[in-house]
């Protein structure tokens, strides 16, 4: 693998061709904030907190350090007025979902983010995907995945798999930056217990209850609860 040299925050940094900017920076002891990144998982490029300025051939682009390849003679800036502004707004947007998250609160301190800037969203999950990716790539069980898209995007457990795998595993729990994963699992588990006791009732209800079969998650199939027999549970922790 070819050795290359790039500049990060004014410092010359040696790296190999297959590295990302983030990896090259971490190697050189330069820190770039991340939320969705994990060294054992494929880079995701979802949270965008690691956005940095990368200049090559006279053009500067804003790129995600965790996936952008380190290139020879690339000039990278990890902090600037623009970058800090972006990280501030991103942090504020995520804090609206999970104001208690330690990871986010640390970022808020560094970038002077106001956790009350945006109206609170009752969802806790910031869709970093660490649980989904860990279960897919490391455990290869695919017990949890994403559903829907855009602002309606959520994580969802597959009840049949989760019922047998998750209770004894829970390795994704410590990865969750907002502890919501744990809550989601507990909720799913209780739903599975409720559902199996109501199976015959729910089959009857499925056939006749056809008006507005949207559950409280805007129509996305959270943990097999299409029968409407949901306990009105909030995210207990």
């Amino acid at each position, binding site marked *: 693998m070819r050795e290359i040299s790039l500049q990060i925050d004014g410092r010359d940094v040696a790296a190999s061709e297959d590295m990302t900017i983030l990896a090259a920076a971490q190697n050189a002891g330069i820190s770039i904030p991340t939320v969705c990144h994990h060294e054992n998982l494929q880079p995701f490029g*979802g949270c*965008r907190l690691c956005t940095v300025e990368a200049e090559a051939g006279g053009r500067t682009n804003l790129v995600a350090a965790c996936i952008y390849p380190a290139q020879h003679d690339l000039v990278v800036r990890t902090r600037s007025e623009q970058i800090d502004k972006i990280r501030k707004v991103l942090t504020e947007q995520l804090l609206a979902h999970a104001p208690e998250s330690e990871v986010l609160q640390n970022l808020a301190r560094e970038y002077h983010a106001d956790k009350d800037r945006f109206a609170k969203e009752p969802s806790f999950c910031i869709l970093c995907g660490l649980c989904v990716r860990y279960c897919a790539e490391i455990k290869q069980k695919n017990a949890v995945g994403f559903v829907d*898209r*855009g*602002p309606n*995007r959520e994580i969802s457990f597959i009840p049949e798999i989760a019922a047998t795998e998750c209770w004894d595993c829970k390795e994704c729990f410590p990865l969750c930056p907002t502890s919501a994963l744990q809550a989601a699992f507990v909720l799913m588990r209780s739903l599975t217990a409720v559902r199996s006791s109501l199976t015959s009732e729910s089959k009857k209800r499925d056939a006749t209850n056809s008006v507005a079969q949207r559950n409280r998650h805007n129509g996305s199939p959270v943990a097999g609860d299409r029968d409407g027999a949901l306990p009105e549970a909030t995210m207990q922790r």
Partner: protein
Amino acid sequence: MINSPAELEKLRQEILAKRDPGTTRISICAGAGCLATGAGKVIAAFTAAIEQQGLQSDVNIKGTGCPGFCERGPVVVIAPEDVCYLQVTPKDVPEIVSQTIQQKKVVDRLLYVDPSKNEKAVREADIPFYKNQERNIIGSNIKIDPKCIDDYLALGGYSALAKALFQMTSEQVVAEVKKSKLRGRGGGGFPTGIKWEAARNAPGDTKYVIVNADEGDPGAFMDRAVLEGNPHSILEGLIIGAYAIGAHEGYIYVRQEYPLALENVGIAIKQAEEHGFLGSNILGSGFDFNVKVHRGAGAFVCGEETALLLSLEGKPGEPRARPPYPATRGLWDKPTNINNVETWANVTLIIDKGADWFNQFGTERSKGTKIFSLVGKIKNTGLVEVPMGVTLRDIIYNIGDGIPGGKKFKAVQTGGPAGGCIPEAHLDIAVDFDELTKAGAIMGSGGMIVMDEDTCMVDVARYFLNFLSEESCGKCSPCREGVKQMHRILTNITEGRGKQGDIELLEELALSTRSASLCALGRSAPNPVLSTIRYFRDEYETHIREKRCPSYSCKGLVSYYIDPEKCGACRICPRECTSDAIIGEKNRIHVIDQAKCNKCGTCFEICPARFGAVIRLSGEPVPAPIPDEMRVVVRKRNAKREKQDA
């Protein structure tokens, strides 16, 4: 099966020999648009009428591709004179058959009338809508039944392919496309030849070429018309591209909302395979190429190339980071070249007629023609093909014939949800990639939506952000959260809950969304907001400060009121009211119950002009209803007229 260019030419001559140019041919547009306004019944009526008159052997009837004059469809063109009739209904057919087909006389009332000169245009080519265009691509549509390959062959179809395979090396084909300076027609405007070269030079034996027919921009339907109306022209371009790049497999990704395009392209592929234009050893050249059709499943983001690739792989369409670019790592990680439908159509023309021919159209940095879908508040809605460099004013007024209803032009939105709104002051800019970008919009795929004084520009921004929040894949936070926040603020503004500081907050959100988003959807999402703030800031401020919508469009800020001085008690509006909100009896002034009114605006539209009693209010309180005892109508008009109204 055709095994050589010579055999192809022989077949072509055979087809032409059977077609007497003097034969009467009735071409009826059978595009999805005209079909939605009854063209199917018109075709059936012609078939029945011709049979009834015993003229089947002398008259040829065909449903064709969309010629673009959608406002006046169903469109019928009768050759060889090329008489063009508009808004034809089945009831008109017997007269057309007896007058035009049998007696060569023209049915005056079905002709286009030029409003400024009060002249009628008999021939298709004389209609200003068509005359002022340069219809290199779309001009063929009315001549082709898309389900009939012979029509395409009769026009010279697949001769460009034969030329590429037998008279040019693959490098020469790439060079010709580069020389043409063709830029992608899907919105990116990237030089096609350079993209091809990158895919061609990428290491690997397995490569793919793809037609992007996802056409997600709402208001744009150019690709639909070309793919539906002339599918072989796209296939031909695709096979040429495959040869140039070294790909042997291709996909046509068609959005599932285009069932007719799917049907016609499927038929075209089968016919092309039967003729030997697809498959192994094409025309005896030794080149193999096969193509499959993939349907989209309702996701605008899949028009983005990396998302499209993932969709082809059976996955959710979440765009991925670039680099690496699809040219080096695309479908299944193999070098892939994706181009838009109109780009592929241009490829066929460029190889057929040469890059030099192509370069005579357009501007220095934007060569060729572009098809635009001219829609919205415009008299002549439809598809318009013009050389790059004509002005917006040319398109809107010389071809579109201006704004209907005597209303005032306000803005033209180009580039879809990634684009911007251009006001009157800039109507004289040349339509090309760079000029539109400078004005704060983009060329995009060609959607051109005209707006008038009744359009609220804040609502336009809200509309686009609503669209984008539904279509965002949700993977990256700047787009998922940023679009949602911007949409929320815009909704609040249009519903009367705007606050001081909202515009500044929108601009701040625009920064992070545009700078940090993973893909072009997020990065361009702020454009509709920023361009409307740039040119129509006063409208934003009026909504926020005065809670008033100057265009009377935002329902939450508009009230309807019947002026007691003008009401003629005609009882039309109580009848037509969609929420039973109007109290109105004979001889008693009508009153709108504000609590029930749903602001649909029907009463405003149907109040007879001589009363003009319904008024719209915004930013001011609605007068209290007049007391019951005063609701007697003062009779100034004679009783006869009243009888006519009731």
